[in-house]
């Protein structure tokens, strides 16, 4: 286990930045309209949805002092290795999605008509190097990054407020019940990192539940503000923009200064670097759990190669980006990471406690 412990605030800062990547580089799912007020409601319902689905996470972090892999290994070392492999698979896929989305953003909004593969690979290498510093260093950096990103986002919000048009809004509950639920779920899948605290429980100092709830609320509030700005400023036009969050940053201005998207882009790149590094660290942690004697540099290097290869393969054709908008490919990892695995961990804790009590009871009886 890592001897350096981090605070829960540091971990949540990294998680917050990871979620913001999804929010800022939002790509609409088939049939979902971001310009509908329903999306605002989804962002508020996110608190309830996440709080409910993350009950096992809450239970785990408040009843156990070790990471979920260590807990599984106490019962079945082989099973814990399967779980570690599952985490590696899910977070590598998650990282590929992040890199592909960033590639799409860079080549659509920043440097269009330019092959930016080398630039993306350079970012991946930087992230791999950053991941060698460990989660605690990333956590410290992320607190500063979060302040910068929130500041840049608030700037965009306030400069866009004067452009709000009441006719851009729609009446609530435009979509029918099933679609409404589906869209709520699709928004909540952006918070897949909610399941990460159970993985790092052993490396976090102090209690985590309260700050976890704060994290859920702050994510929801951020989404609400971003979506409110998108709807108020862009209206239906948002549905026809590949990155509506970027489109709003091109609209606001302060006096003569109109290029606010430059601030926003810088902030987003900070988020992307944090997220890719964070996911690399999660993969490294699981790889080290599978192969305790492995050199620490191997996992980031292999992950960087996989990510670079995926960028080269995906970047060439827009058809290959389709997996970015497939709801099921995001929803399934969310349930596994946020609910299923932590729930299994909780059941193990409960079972071991019952067994312990039974043992104590039978020992007392024998005595």
């Amino acid at each position: 286990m890592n001897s350096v412990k981090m605070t829960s605030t540091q971990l949540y800062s990294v998680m917050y930045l990871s979620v913001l990547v999804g929010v800022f580089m939002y790509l609409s799912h088939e049939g979902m309209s971001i310009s509908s007020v329903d999306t605002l409601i989804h962002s508020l319902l996110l608190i309830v949805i996440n709080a409910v689905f993350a009950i096992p996470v809450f239970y785990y972090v408040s009843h156990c002092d070790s990471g979920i892999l260590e807990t599984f290994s106490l019962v079945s070392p082989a099973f814990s290795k399967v779980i570690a492999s599952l985490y590696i698979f899910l977070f590598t896929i998650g990282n590929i999605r992040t890199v592909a989305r960033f590639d799409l953003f860079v080549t659509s909004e920043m440097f269009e008509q330019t092959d930016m593969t080398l630039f993306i690979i350079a970012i991946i290498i930087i992230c791999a190097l950053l991941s060698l510093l460990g989660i605690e260093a990333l956590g410290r950096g992320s607190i500063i990054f979060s302040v910068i990103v929130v500041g840049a986002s608030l700037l965009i919000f306030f400069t866009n407020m004067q452009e709000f048009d009441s006719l851009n809004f729609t009446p609530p509950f435009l979509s029918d019940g099933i679609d409404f639920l589906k869209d709520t779920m699709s928004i909540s899948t952006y918070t897949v990192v909610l399941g990460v605290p159970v993985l790092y429980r052993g490396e976090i100092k102090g209690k985590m539940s309260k700050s976890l709830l704060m994290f859920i609320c702050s994510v929801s509030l951020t989404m609400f503000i971003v979506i409110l700005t998108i709807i108020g400023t862009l209206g239906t036009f948002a549905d026809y923009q590949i990155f509506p969050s970027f489109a709003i940053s091109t609209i606001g201005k302060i006096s003569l200064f109109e290029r606010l998207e430059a601030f926003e882009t810088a902030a987003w790149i900070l988020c992307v670097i944090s997220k890719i590094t964070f996911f690399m660290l999660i993969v490294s942690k699981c790889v080290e759990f599978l192969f305790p004697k492995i050199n620490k540099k191997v996992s980031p290097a292999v992950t960087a190669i996989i990510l670079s290869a995926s960028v080269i393969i995906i970047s060439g054709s827009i058809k290959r980006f389709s997996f970015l908008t497939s709801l099921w490919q995001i929803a399934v990892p969310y349930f596994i990471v946020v609910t299923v695995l932590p729930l299994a961990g909780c059941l193990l804790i409960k079972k071991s406690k019952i067994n312990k009590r039974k043992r104590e009871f039978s020992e007392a009886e024998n005595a």
Partner: protein
Amino acid sequence: MLKKILIYGAAALAVGIGFLQFTGTQKLGTELSELMIIQSMGIDVEDDRYSVTVEILNNEQTGSANGEVQSEEKTKIYSGNGETVSEALSEIIKKSGNRPLYAHNRAIIIGEEAAKTKLTGILDFIERDYNTRATVPVAIVKGGKATDIITADVGMNVIRAQILENVLEESEKVSYSQRMRILDVANYKYEQTTSLVIPAIKTVKNNEKEFYYIDGSAVFDKNNKLSGYLNEQQSMGLGFLKNKIQNGVIGSDIDGKQKFSVLIVKSKTEYVINTDGDIPEYTLNVKLSVDLDEIDNGAYSFDEKYIEKIENAVSEEVVKMMNRSLYETQKVYRQDCLRFGRRLLLYDKNAYFKYNDKWEEIFPEIPVYVNVDVQLRRLGEISFFKK
């Protein structure tokens, strides 16, 4: 040490790349002098082919040691033709030898013929283009070509696009027309019940010099084909109907004799929609605050009755403007460029979904009632007293 270098290095990289967006380096590997920094773009259709005229910054100007620009115009004009807007622009690239940068574009002007036949294709190009800003204003040339606007002789060594942009912005502030940016155009276009209305522009000659003039608004049908125009007064009426009036001047008279003008200080239009009948009914309550600007025979005495007369005269004038505008949009063009359908969606979505598919038939029949409440706020700098 390595930690600090990496973390700060990553932050510096992110900020650096972000700030690259301020510059022409958005086109990587391109010098600023190799870029065609487009200031305004005019699109026409001739013989079913697109013709594009652009005003670009003359960034190859030579400068003296003290930084002053020597000779040459501040901007250059290029034009090209093609089967698509993109092809026409490619021809311009061939002629100029530079790559286009649309991020600094100040105005998009569309010729009348293009507005009649090819607006949808033009809008697709504008919306799809990567670095066209959504806030660029759009205007239609009334009875003419976009190239006449882009190449107009509006002064020596001026950036025409800058004047064009100012004219479009100012005309909105004085309520002669309502601005339509790319994003507004897109919203009108995508709304099922709404039809486009875009400011109409033309040039007028005065002593051999040309001036830009906003001459009302162009009204489109649901297929984005030009239906006709609203004149200045009707455009102002449209502003009241759409709750988009900022400032402006209203002229009227008392008992058909004493002419006067008032300045609009504030205007707010409230919508009341009644969906109980067969078709929805709209009642528009306008609250207008004005300052007296001029009376032709210089009245210096104002009692309450006299002030009421002024207020009533302004109210009647605004009602007339709104009714003329309503008549043109509802009865003549039969196009909902007032976003009545959208307002119905916000007010009563069930009623909206009852009517939205046959809105084109329903809109012209909708009863609209207009009430205008005018408050005279100030009388100007001349003192007021009762004799």
